């Protein structure tokens, strides 16, 4: 970070280069990829939460027009390996189609292949499956009870993870503290629900032995998993990363879908495609988010200082494991939020149930945890009769205390929470906002102010893997960039993931342009297929500004160093005696100068002019390790992500007590993600994250009834925030650079979402506090508000 010259392109309001193709309708999504001879898949879902498959009769379906094949689970299971589990739970086996037994409503039982999707759907209706119903469990606490029917009999129980961490002297701190309080909050099962469902197409070429895959994917090590499942060498799998992804925010993982499609493509000798329809996606895209019960206890004093916290998080991952239990692990890296809580006992429990499988969702479990922590702080403030912001300020880590080691082993990089809060309060006129709330109350409305302060751990390594699974020894989560200057002097750089809306082409071009001092618009960014790619772990864990930005920076520095070396060699002077400026290298004392094209010519054509030992050409590569994350866990502690962005939400909500439909009257967020590389992109992330948070806190939930049926399968029931529900949001910026990154940047891909559910919940609870009621489960739906208010008023009358 030291000696950073003024930035020319970084932090400037440049356009996002990806936008041009999308506004013209020229994005290339998986469903747009034209492949000759393509066959289409429709899947048949289970209608029971748990049942033994007695028989499958596909004879009639096979006779339907256009039908090529009906694939059953047993056959697929014989030909493939089970899908990977994150934890060491070998008996929780998962295959893409149900084998012998279904475990949730909607689970895919057979895949029908036909000339068109419509024909495949028609034929799927003709498949007869005989089931024998089995006992099932939906509720998380029931699933945790050892007497519950295990979803996987071979595993013996529904428990996937039951691990208690004690960081610091929790018992002592609780004993010392004069005040304690405890509560339960519930984060309902929702997800990011991209508007594009998951889709994948695959083609097997037996002569070249190549499996070509086009997918709507955002998945670290995606092709590794496909190769493993299909038992083929990884260099036989070519994933095309120039496929645009229509939104992901974590969930576009698609391994099971890909295994089905790839297996069928090999079997039938024809390219095959599966594009989920909305019903497939909602019921069994295996893309639901955390479903979590928190029991929290805090120890504090009369000044509102929180000394210790005990948290049990019980997460219901649904019928299969995958990586989802890790979503209890990532929040360990910010388990005390922005506060100086000295010790923590964390009991992480992950259970299976007969719901759809859970997948990674924006923040990887951090947003629910922040909701629990922020609820605790609100309750402490109420208990000691102090302003909620004042209590936060008293507990915040101070700017001079960074880098700050939290009890669970992560060192926070930097921050200035008090300044961000002060700026937000000044911008919003906090006293005026309180008066406005009181005036609204006086006019007969319910009105409340919500507050949330939280961190966005960013730069994603995967330290939670070895922390929760001792057999896992992952200590790198690298990302890479390659830059090539061609024989005519034009610059092309590679990035090694798909586009799902975060502007990585813009990011890489901006950073390379900054270092080389050339116009980023002149730099081409390409996304090679996975066989031509360098290692990448995809845009998870809010990491690309740090990791791709870092890799591009270091690659550009290597390129610049090579150019400087070539020039110094021509000048016959030391490298330190030349100056690089805008692609031209000069030595003022010697009155010598070498321009960009001269370097290009020497590197590409004049080997005799190159310094001894230098490779010809102007091509460089950098594979970047995550800053700070280099060690395996020790004693249940580990350095999780390197950087920590801060956000502070201040929200005013009002609603009619009879109707209960919350209107967000004011939304101000203070945001500090260090140096911003592209302001448009960061703003979009924050605003979009807040919209997701509004959905999770007020509208969205995958609701299952006691029979295990999913009640919210369509967008008529699973409600997404529209432009009416998302208010105008005011962003107050602050910049505390990270000492661990090349420009001082931190992550922002999860911003907004990590704190808005806590803030909105706080606002609604403030609004109903005068009635003596509160809400402890998200989403707080309109009906829940009006019903609770009506019940409270009836009780008052009685």
């Amino acid at each position: 970070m030291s000696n950073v010259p003024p930035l020319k392109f970084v932090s400037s309001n440049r356009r996002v280069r990806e936008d041009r193709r999308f506004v013209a309708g020229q994005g290339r999504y998986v469903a747009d990829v034209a492949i000759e001879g393509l066959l289409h898949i429709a899947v048949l879902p289970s209608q029971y939460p748990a049942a033994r498959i007695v028989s499958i009769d596909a004879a009639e379906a096979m006779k339907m027009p256009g039908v090529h094949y009906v694939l059953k689970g047993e056959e697929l299971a014989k030909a493939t390996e089970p899908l990977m589990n994150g934890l060491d739970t070998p008996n929780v086996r998962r295959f893409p189609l149900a084998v012998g037994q279904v475990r949730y409503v909607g689970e895919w039982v057979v895949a029908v292949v036909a000339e068109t999707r419509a024909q495949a759907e028609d034929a799927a209706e003709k498949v007869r499956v005989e089931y024998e119903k089995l006992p099932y469990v939906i509720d998380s606490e029931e699933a945790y009870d050892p007497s519950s029917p295990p979803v996987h009999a071979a595993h013996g129980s529904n428990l996937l993870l039951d691990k208690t961490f004690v960081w610091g002297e929790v018992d002592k701190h609780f004993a010392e503290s004069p005040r304690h309080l405890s509560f339960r909050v519930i984060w309902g099962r929702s997800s990011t629900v991209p508007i594009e469902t998951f889709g994948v197409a695959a083609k097997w070429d037996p002569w070249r032995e190549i499996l070509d895959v086009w997918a709507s994917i955002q998945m670290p090590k995606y092709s590794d998993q496909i190769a493993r499942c299909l038992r083929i060498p990884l260099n036989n799998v070519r994933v095309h990363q120039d496929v645009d992804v229509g939104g992901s925010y974590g969930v576009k993982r698609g391994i099971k879908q890909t295994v089905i499609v790839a297996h069928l493509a090999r079997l039938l000798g024809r390219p095959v495609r599966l594009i989920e329809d909305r019903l497939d996606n909602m019921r069994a895209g295996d893309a639901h988010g955390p479903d979590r019960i928190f029991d929290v206890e805090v120890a504090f004093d009369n000044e509102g200082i929180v000394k210790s916290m005990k948290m049990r998080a019980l997460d219901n991952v649904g019928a299969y494991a995958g990586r989802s239990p890790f979503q209890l692990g990532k929040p360990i890296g910010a388990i005390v939020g922005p506060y100086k809580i000295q010790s923590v006992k964390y009991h992480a429990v992950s259970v299976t149930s007969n719901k759809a499988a859970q997948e990674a969702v924006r923040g990887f479990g951090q947003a629910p945890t922040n909701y629990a922590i922020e609820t605790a702080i609100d309750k402490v403030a109420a208990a000691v009769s102090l302003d909620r912001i004042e209590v936060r300020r008293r507990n915040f880590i101070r700017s001079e205390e960074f880098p700050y080691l939290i009890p669970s082993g992560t060192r926070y990089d930097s921050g200035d929470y008090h300044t961000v809060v002060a700026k937000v309060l000044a911008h919003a006129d906090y006293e005026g906002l309180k008066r406005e709330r009181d005036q609204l109350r006086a006019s007969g409305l319910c009105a409340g102010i919500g507050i949330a302060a939280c961190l966005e751990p960013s730069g994603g390594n995967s330290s939670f893997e070895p922390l929760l699974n001792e057999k896992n020894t992952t200590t790198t989560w690298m990302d890479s960039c390659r830059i090539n200057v061609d024989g005519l002097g034009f610059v092309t750089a590679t990035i090694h993931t798909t586009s799902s809306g975060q502007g990585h082409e813009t990011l890489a071009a901006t950073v390379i342009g900054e270092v080389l001092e050339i116009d980023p618009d002149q730099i081409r960014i390409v996304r090679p297929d996975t066989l031509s790619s360098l290692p990448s772990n995809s845009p998870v864990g809010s990491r690309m500004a740090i990791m791709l930005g870092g890799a591009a920076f270091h690659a550009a520095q290597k390129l610049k160093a090579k150019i400087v070396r070539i020039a110094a060699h021509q000048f016959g002077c030391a490298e330190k005696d030349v100056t690089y400026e805008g692609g031209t290298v000069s030595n003022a004392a010697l009155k010598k100068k070498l321009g960009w094209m001269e370097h290009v010519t020497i590197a590409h054509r004049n080997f005799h002019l190159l310094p001894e030992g230098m490779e010809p050409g102007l091509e460089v590569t950098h594979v970047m390790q995550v800053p700070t994350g280099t060690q395996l866990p020790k004693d249940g502690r580990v350095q999780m992500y390197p950087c920590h962005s801060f956000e502070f939400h201040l929200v005013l909500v009002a609603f009619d007590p009879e109707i209960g439909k919350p209107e967000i009257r004011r939304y101000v967020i203070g945001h500090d993600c260090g140096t911003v590389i592209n302001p448009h992109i960061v703003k979009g992330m924050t605003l979009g994250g807040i919209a997701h948070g509004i959905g999770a806190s007020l509208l969205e939930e995958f609701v299952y009834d006691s029979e295990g049926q999913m009640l919210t399968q369509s967008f008529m029931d699973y409600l997404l925030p529209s432009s009416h529900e998302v208010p105008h949001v005011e962003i107050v910026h602050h910049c505390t650079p990270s000492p661990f990154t090349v420009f001082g940047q931190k992550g922002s891909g999860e911003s907004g979402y990590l704190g808005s559910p806590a803030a909105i919940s706080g606002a609604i609870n403030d609004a109903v506090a005068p009635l003596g009621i509160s809400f402890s489960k998200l989403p707080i739906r309109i009906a829940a508000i009006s019903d609770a208010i009506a019940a409270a008023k009836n009780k008052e009358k009685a």
Partner: protein
Amino acid sequence: MKVRLNVNRQLREADIEPRKTLLDTLREDFLLVGCHAGCEHGVCGACTVLIDGEPSRSCLMFAVQADGYEITTIEGLSPAPGELSIVQDAFCETHGLQCGFCTPGMILTAHALLEGNEAPTREDIVEAISGNICRCTGYGQIVEAIEHAADRLRKTNVPRKTGGAAQGEAAQPDGPRGGRS
């Protein structure tokens, strides 16, 4: 059965099943893949096209119902290859998109609004796009894009509908229109 449709000011013919939606026909038979399938039950608006200038859900309409109407897809909006309309350019200026999946429908909706309303208020814009769900942006930069486009359109001489459809009041085409209450 054979249909002949007026798409982006061109007559296009296709031989399709009567049950085929306009969305699938545009995508599969005319290769106009800027029109996207999001929910296929009329809520999300990713499949929005203009039918006689009015934003409509192509997933809720059979192709055979579209006979006789003027259909505009996102591909019909760019003035020339590589050239953006004012509305499209405004979305680039404010970054009114991320993944781009809802964007064609959103831009067609914005285009229709601005054809009939020279100076839309923020409320007009919010109302106009409320049937198009975007999961990426939280709508802020979309609203800014439309405000910016309105401003730029006012300063140009691009001819627009006069006294035409203000949002919500226009005559509805026969095809079903989606929308949220």
